[in-house]
Every structure is written in C-alpha cells, then in structure tokens.
C-alpha cells in the first residue's frame, strides 16, 4: 500500500509541481492541487505507464483525488 502511495505521490508532485505534503488522501487534483482537465488526462496516462495498467475513460473520470488514485491502482494491481 505505502509503496503504491509513494509512487502515485511522486507522479503527482512531478506533474503538478506541488509540495509532497500537499498530496493528502482527500486532496483533489483539480480543486486542491491546481490541475486542469488536460493535467488530469496526463496524470491518468502517467499512472497507466507507471503501473502497467489500462484505465478506461469512465474509470478515469472517477479518479478525482489522490486517495481515489491510490485505491484504484491498489485494486488494479492486486
């Protein structure tokens, strides 16, 4: 779990240029971390690349927060 969290946080920090401690479970990519709709698409692509999974568009739309992403990727890679 913590490994997945670390990897997701690293991607978020790199792509959105935010401080790591701002990337909390409830932090929304768009509302709290300054992402726009294109950033959100690119984040999902980065998750796919890092974890070797395919995230369908409808699932991608449900990933709004850091916690959402960690939960989805934990399930997808388990």
């Amino acid at each position, binding site marked *: 779990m913590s490994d997945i969290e670390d990897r997701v946080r690293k991607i978020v920090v790199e*792509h959105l*240029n935010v401080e790591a401690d701002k990337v909390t479970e409830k932090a929304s990519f768009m509302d709290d971390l300054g992402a726009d709709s*294109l950033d959100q698409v690119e984040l999902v692509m980065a998750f*796919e690349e890092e974890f070797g999974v*395919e995230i369908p568009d409808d699932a991608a739309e449900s990933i709004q927060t850091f916690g959402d992403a960690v939960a989805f990727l934990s399930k997808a890679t388990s």
Partner: protein
Amino acid sequence: MRLRRVVVTGLGIVSPLGVGHEVVWSNLLASKSGARRVDDFEVGDLPCQIACRIPLGSSEEGKFNPDDWMEPKEQRKVDPFIVFAMAASTQALRDSGFAAKTTEQQERTGVLIGSGIGGIGGINDAAITLKEKGPRRISPFFIPGRLINLASGYVSIEHGLKGPNHSVVTACSTGAHAIGDAARLIALDDADVMVAGGAESPVNRLSLAGFAACRALSTGFNDAPEKGSRPYDKDRDGFVMGEGAGVVVLEEYEHAKARGAHIYAEVVGYGLSGDAHHITAPAEDGNGGYRSMAAALKRAGLQASDIDYINAHGTSTPLGDEIELGAVTRLLGEHAPNVVMSSTKSAVGHLLGAAGAVEAIFSLMAIRDNIAPPTINLDNPSVETAINLAPHKPVEKTIDVALSNSFGFGGTNASLIFSRAD
C-alpha cells in the same frame, strides 16, 4: 482611414549571443559568434553539424535559464519556442514599463508572435511515441504545446492581454511580418499596444536533416563552426541555423508619450511582396525583395536616399546574398556609397521565424546608438559593391532611418523601416 503613429517602447531577446538586448548588442558589436558544434544529439550522419545555440546559465550573466521565465510544470508541456517567446515577451514588457492593469488596458493590448516551423521537435517525438507505444500514450499537451499561435496564447495568459491574439507563419519572414502586421493593428485602432515578434526552436535532427536536404545549410565548416555563417563572402556555402526569440512592444505614439515611455523609434514603413517564382529559391532578378523594400519606402513617405542602415536578410547562401545585394543596389542607386548594410546572421545565425524580429531589434539598437553592427567572417566579398557591408567591425555613423529585410521560403518578402522618433 487615418493611420495612427506606432512606436517601439520595449525590447526582448533570447539568442545565441545571450539573453537581454543590452548583452546581445554588446556581444554583437564585439564581433562574437554564437555558432558551435551540436553536441546534445547525434549529428555524425548529418551533412551540417553546427548551429548557433543559446548559452544556458544564469540570467544575471546574460544567459538563458528557462525557469526564470516559465514554470517548470508549464515548460514540460511545450516546445522550446514557446519558452523563448515567454522570455522575450516578459523582457520586452518590463523594458517598456507598461503593464495592462485595467480592463480597458487589457482589452486594448494584444499579442502577435509567429514562428516558422513551431513545435517540429515535439511533433517528431510524438510521432515516435505513436509508432512505438500507440495513440493512448499521446499527451493531451501534445497539440497545444506545438501549435505556432500558442506562443501568443501563452503570452496573453501570462500578462492578461485580451486584445487581438494573432500569429504569423511565413517561414523566414515571420518575425518581420509579425511586427509589421501588429503595427497595422495599432495604426488601424484595433489595439493601443501590441507584443509582437517571432520565436523558433529548430535545432534538432529532423530540422537539420530537412534543411540540409533543401541544400540550404552550411556543410563545409563542421570543424570551424564560428566561420560557418559568412554572408557575402566567396566561401559561403549555406546558412547556419540559430534559435531564440525576438519580441518588441509596439505602442500608439500618443499612448507612449502620455505615460512618458522611452521610445526607441517609430515604425514608419512596412512593405510586403511575393516572388511567385520558386518554393525555396529567390527570383534571380531580386524583384520580390526590391518591391518589398519599395513598398515600405512608399508607406513611410521616404526616399531611398533617406536610408542610413540596412539589416540585410543575408543568410550566407550562395544564391540569396547576391540577389538581395542586387536588389538593394538597384533601390539605392547613387545613394549606395552612403549606406551601411550588414548581415547580423553572420553572428547569431539564421533564427528562421524569429530572424526578422531579432534583426528588427538590432536595427532599433543601431538607431539608438548610431552604430551599425558588423558582418563577421566577411574576408573576401564575392562581389564588388559601393555599399559598406561592415566587414568584421561595427561602423559608427548617424543612423536615423534603418531598413530590415526578411525573405522566406515560398517567395514571401517583408521589409520594415524604423525612423528615429521626434
């Protein structure tokens, strides 16, 4: 319709001779060259292995640190030409002392920055990604980070400029057309202030291969890069690619006067023409360039005998330089011995879509300081001319009127004339 007067009040430049107009100008007058061997990607199989490169380093040293001009997060999304445009635009606005603060100022200030080939490097990379990894790996920033008009888009967002937002794509005439067209938007009362110029980031394998295939690049100076760009010299064998951006702040004359702005010069003439001859070669008789210069003089209400300095297109190609010189000679007639004409591409290389804007800035500095920058590497002129081509060293002379030429693939020609403002 009565045309309003347009003046230049701010300069911004990112170039192989440095960052910032004072630094670049002093390096230019010191006859330095920005050319070097390309060492950041494979060039061993390319006929041309040299280019004029932007020096990386701290802004305080007059070098380029992209983080000073655009957030790293944003840089990652765009091709370098957009970062260069942001850097030059911010410099130009700072230099002008103008910031669009009120809603009216914002809506009366526009942006017109062009590029010749835009994000060709990023297009190359994305095509490889598409082939190797498939369409799902193409970034959502691929398109907006490569489109040429996104230089204008990013600059408008950064500075809150809501007036005309436009762009120009006319190959190597881009920068001159951008400044000329932007001046007309002010003259016709569509805006009071325009941030205008050109930006280019062409130094990559694909562009070097493409321009080499056109037989446009220098290939004989891979072991002596600084000697490669040598306009009018008998040993010239093609242009040396450059990179960077030039941006000026153009302003309606009364608007500039009212806020006590420093005025570099007035944009008095702008001429355009087409060769209708060949996609890459200029018409042999120089007719296109001649008509472009003549049209700019007509707009300015000046005679050829009023011209003090010409910043030539002069790319260092075997064909182009002499054709331009012929057209200028025809234009000047008996006035030829009184004129200095230099090609600053000898020092900064050919910045393609940014060339016309960077050279407009050099023309403006020439007026400011009454000094014509040199044509370096001009050891043995290939033709005899009465015009002083300023070989090796700058020439001090009174310069009240300067003309800057830009000619591009497709037979597209632009000439700008700047005059010391009263």
